[in-house]
């Protein structure tokens, strides 16, 4: 909660500076799990979205906030799980809800050009909520992972105020807490629009 509050505070401060050059991006986000998350859910996620705000502090440097939500889901076939003398057979329904919340900076290679590639880097947290449902019960495991997020992408201007946005990000959430005992990481491909405020 404390983390959410501080992020909210930063949002307000950043929002106050909106009158300067800035851009706001909304994108559809496809997720491809890595590491421990991929062991838990091997299927790619086609349910996700990101929102980001960048204030231009230099003509080619923007800083701001990135929020995302990716839901990974897999329905396992009926399988048996044995612990000691006990065996349980049933279907498992697995969910992983991941919410990256990061402070980020982008470096734009061709500001003002129609095709404007960029690289970015974010630091923050990923809130992970993993559910394993079986029968009428769910096992819920949560983590607030410290996270870094390298990114490459480009903006392609379609009008003066809007640009097509395409980026690839790697969300690296480091192990946190004791409910999930490994890093929670995934790659996302994001496609959306950037609204430029000049």
């Amino acid at each position, binding site marked *: 909660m404390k983390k959410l509050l501080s992020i909210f505070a930063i949002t307000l401060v950043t929002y106050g500076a909106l009158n300067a050059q800035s851009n706001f991006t909304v994108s559809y986000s496809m997720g491809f799990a890595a590491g421990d998350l991929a062991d838990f859910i091997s299927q790619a996620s086609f349910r996700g979205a990101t929102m980001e705000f960048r204030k231009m502090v230099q003509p080619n440097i923007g800083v701001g906030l990135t929020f995302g939500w990716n839901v990974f889901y897999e329905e396992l076939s009926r399988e048996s799980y*044995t612990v000691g003398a*006990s065996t349980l*057979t049933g*279907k498992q329904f697995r969910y992983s809800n991941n919410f990256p919340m990061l402070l980020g900076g982008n470096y734009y290679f061709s500001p003002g050009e129609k095709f404007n590639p960029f690289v970015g880097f974010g630091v923050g947290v990923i809130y992970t909520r993993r559910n394993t449902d079986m029968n*009428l019960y769910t096992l819920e495991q949560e983590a607030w992972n410290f996270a870094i997020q390298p990114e490459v992408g480009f903006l392609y201007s379609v009008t003066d105020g809007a640009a097509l946005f395409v980026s690839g990000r790697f969300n690296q959430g480091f192990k946190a807490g004791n409910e999930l005992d490994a890093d929670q990481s995934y790659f996302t491909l994001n496609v959306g629009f950037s609204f430029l405020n000049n």
Partner: protein
Amino acid sequence: MPVVLLSCYPAGPEYVEDVDVTYTTYDQKFDFQSRGTYAMPDKIVVDVEIEDGDTTYIYMKDVFATPILAAIDDNMKANGWAKVGLAGTPDVVVTPAGISSTTYFYSYWYDWWYGGWYGGWGWYYPPYYTVSSYTTGSMIITMADPNVGTDNPINQSQTAWIAVGNGLFSGAYDISRVTKAIDEAFDQSPYLKLN
């Protein structure tokens, strides 16, 4: 956008069968291989009534009980067990039972009354009650050796094997879900196999 996203949130279980589970556990010290015969009652207990100290068993209707008992017999036979009557001093007794349990969700809006001073009018808001429930059913099969009861301080035979098939009641009374659970229970208990 969140609304759009919520509408495509993963669906999860779609059919009642999706939440059916089969659980088995056994006494690792029990030597199944040295046994070979079993006895089983021809009725399935689903409830017990105790009145003035008299205990009455309530039995499952034959139309449901018959296929369940047949499924147990088929699996025992396939695993190499021979059925005998109680008089034939069976090595183990197999006792099936069925139980159900209903969970209610219950909520209501508080009644409220607005008094005010306008001629003493008041409105009673009708209380709205919403009740929903789900019922789960469990099929329990236990196996025990009746002959070892005397070796035990409380004169009871410890259960050697327990199988539980649990699922949601669908109202369709699809008995094949139960017989499937029985098949699964035997499949996941290879130590019961004598042949």
